[in-house]
């Protein structure tokens, strides 16, 4: 629920910075940092221990079963570095039917604790962080379409081949994005949501030609276009701003306009087919 959805989900690091700047409200998810390799390794070891020892009662996804839910739990959420979880694991809760796991070493318990906290973090996230964290959507989950149909769409109705080539700009595209949802968003909407803001740039540069009243034409990356003003970064490196009433015309050039125009034409099947095809471009 709550207001966070408006600002969810872009596919650029810049967008995360942009989001965190805006995430003042309790409604916005606060993105945790991606775990370090050491943390990730501990979480992986903890995961194996959990599946082996704990999942049978607490559920493979920690949401409970014969034993309590560990995600929606005051104890796990108030735990700091195992101070609450640790004693329960090593001593058990015999009266409630939980045996003691006294055979687990302190470092194994620390790995378990790291895993439980990482699962809570992932659980609490409303969306994935660009770059693939949490890594809970493997490419195989999205590659449910037909590669052949995707290829036909690429060269046919989708007009993708007008601008792109599987051996040129898209060579090895599937290997370039660790996060499959990023690839999926990119081929539908290459500059993310903010592409539809007239000034947002990510890999693509939206430019404008401003014709002044004396006929001079100034060109460059567009910084602002609206609220009564137009602002560009000129070829001289300076920022230039004019009241819209003081210019003859503004021509905006958005290199991903074809993707914007294409948006209403996508359906689920074509999206799955295209992803499946692009997955073949390893």
């Amino acid at each position, binding site marked *: *629920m*709550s*207001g*966070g*959805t*408006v*600002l*969810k*989900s*872009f*596919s650029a690091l810049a967008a995360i910075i942009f989001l965190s700047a*805006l995430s*003042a*409200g*309790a*409604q916005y998810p606060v993105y945790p940092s991606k775990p370090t390799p050491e943390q990730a390794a501990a979480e992986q070891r903890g995961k194996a221990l959990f599946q082996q020892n704990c999942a049978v009662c607490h559920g493979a*996804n920690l*949401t*409970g079963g014969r034993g309590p*839910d560990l*995600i*929606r739990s*005051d104890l796990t*959420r*108030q735990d700091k570095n195992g101070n609450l979880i640790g004693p329960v694991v090593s001593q058990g809760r015999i009266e409630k039917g939980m045996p003691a796991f006294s055979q687990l070493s302190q470092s194994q318990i620390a790995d378990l604790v790291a895993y439980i906290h990482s699962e809570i973090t992932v*659980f*609490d*996230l*409303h*969306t*994935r962080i660009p770059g693939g964290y949490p890594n*809970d*959507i493997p490419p195989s*989950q*999205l590659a*449910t379409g037909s590669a052949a149909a995707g290829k036909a769409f690429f060269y046919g109705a989708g007009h993708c081949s007008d601008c792109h080539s599987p051996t040129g700009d898209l060579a090895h595209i599937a290997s370039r994005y660790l996060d499959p*949802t990023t690839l*999926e*968003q990119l081929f*539908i*909407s290459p500059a*993310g*949501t903010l592409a*539809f*803001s*007239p*000034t947002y740039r990510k890999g693509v540069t939206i430019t404008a030609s401003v014709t002044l009243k004396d006929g001079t034409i100034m060109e460059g990356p567009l910084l*602002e*276009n*609206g*609220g*009564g*003003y137009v602002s560009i970064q000129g070829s001289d490196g300076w920022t230039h701003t004019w009241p819209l009433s003081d210019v003859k015309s503004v021509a905006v050039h958005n290199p991903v306009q074809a993707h*914007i125009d294409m*948006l209403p034409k*996508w*359906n*689920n099947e074509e*999206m*799955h087919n295209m992803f499946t095809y692009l997955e073949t471009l390893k």
Partner: protein
Amino acid sequence: MKRLIAILAVLLALAFAIAPSSRAQGLDNLSVLSQAPTSMWPSYNGDYSGRRFSPLTQINEKNVGSLGLAWAFQTGARSLETMPLEVNGIMYITGGNEMWAVDALTGRQIWHFVNGRPGGSSKGAAMYKDKLYMTTPDDKLLCIDAKDGKLLWQIPIDDPTLKAFGGSAPLVVKDHIIVGTGGDTADLPGYLLAVDPDTGKIQWRWDAMPKPGTPAWNTWPHDTDVVTRGGGMTWITGTYDPDLNLLYWGTGNPHPVENGAARAGANLYTCSIIALDPDTGKLVWYFQGSPHDTHDWDMNMTPVLFNGTWHGKPRKLVAQAGKNGMFFVLDRTDGKALLSEAFVKANWYTGLNKRGEPIPDPIREPQPDGTLVWGSTGTDWQAPSFDPQTGLFYVNSQQSFGVFYLTMPGIHAEGWAGRDFFLYSKSMMKAIDYQTGKIKWVHDFPGREGLEGVLTTAGRLVFTGGSYDNVLALDARTGKTVWQTFVGGGMSTSPMTYELFGRQYVVYPAGGTVFAFSLPSRAGNTEEMSGN
């Protein structure tokens, strides 16, 4: 004729307006909040109706171009979501865990209250007699002495361990402080509380999750405990009709958020407008604007109350522009739907059921390999406004397109259970004709994702925030910009207005600053500049 009635209504409202004869008196809610706001803005929505329409006309379509800064109050907060109150010449501004009392004439601080560590969001306070009430990000209700900003008492509302949050403005109805709660992470059941204004004792509690044996109970499966885990949060302030003695409130989405299979059925009373008896908390009627939601479309948006003529007959109405992009007009006596129309492009519903509620299309429920949804968010907590002069309902909305993935399938899913991404979003204000649901005009906002609310006035103006940190006024009939000023900060709340010593102010919280605008100054300021 319609226009004449509107003018009469405005004159009548002005005649009853309370002059700011003395300062810093308490607030008699029932008489003040039952009329459109003029000398005060005494509650989150300005009055009980939620119309956010002021009868003030000093600032109007003809002179708005000369609007200038009267004062600015810098809170030092990074950003504000607050809806300031103004009562008898004093403005009350909230931040997360803090509040400022400011002289509404000059902008000078009177007191500053801090409760623990400031931070997080607060959408505003409520006032009852000489006390103020606010909820905190960690979900407590605070009662503060309006004279000196001292804390009188505080009570916990919900447990923040499972990410419950407060921050919404309470609503005062008679001697009840009505408090909602939020939390969208770890499956919390929503409810409304009525609290005694003097003692902080709970008077009643209404639960969004139904009780066994009720028809609503059967709109959930019972092979898991999902019905106890809920959703149906209540984090935007509701409205009240004193004549019908009915309290109206919007409820949030069900949980797990994006896994519909775990909770087959309509999932009452989530994503609904509910009408309660404010004295007992008993449900009188409900209308579910988004049955079986799987897209985080919490339908908490303000239920706006106004009277109108419907097919020749006078009717008491309630209208809502929902997060799911649907605009509803209901009879507020019984909740019967009169109009259900999408105000943005939407592909997620197949039609309407016999209650006028949309029927969700199963293919648009989040799928493991993704599903594309038009209308992935229609609007959010930004307040709409209804102008009785134009008969238009103004809402800042988004035309959005998103992809929704199911990541935790199965009936034991909890929490979010999915991931969703916006592929496209375009912000605009829409003026909806409530008689038809048709869009009368659209005002595009380039360059931002807008969360600005709306204020309308009898000066034929619509006030809101716009592109690139501008604040603006639009012509209420056409949507054309008639005034704008760059304030250098984003706006996540709504403008408000009041009149003090014969001068009308329009107030915009933007960034961490509260800006008060008015027409060029009269004697007061010039004297100060020339004298001394």
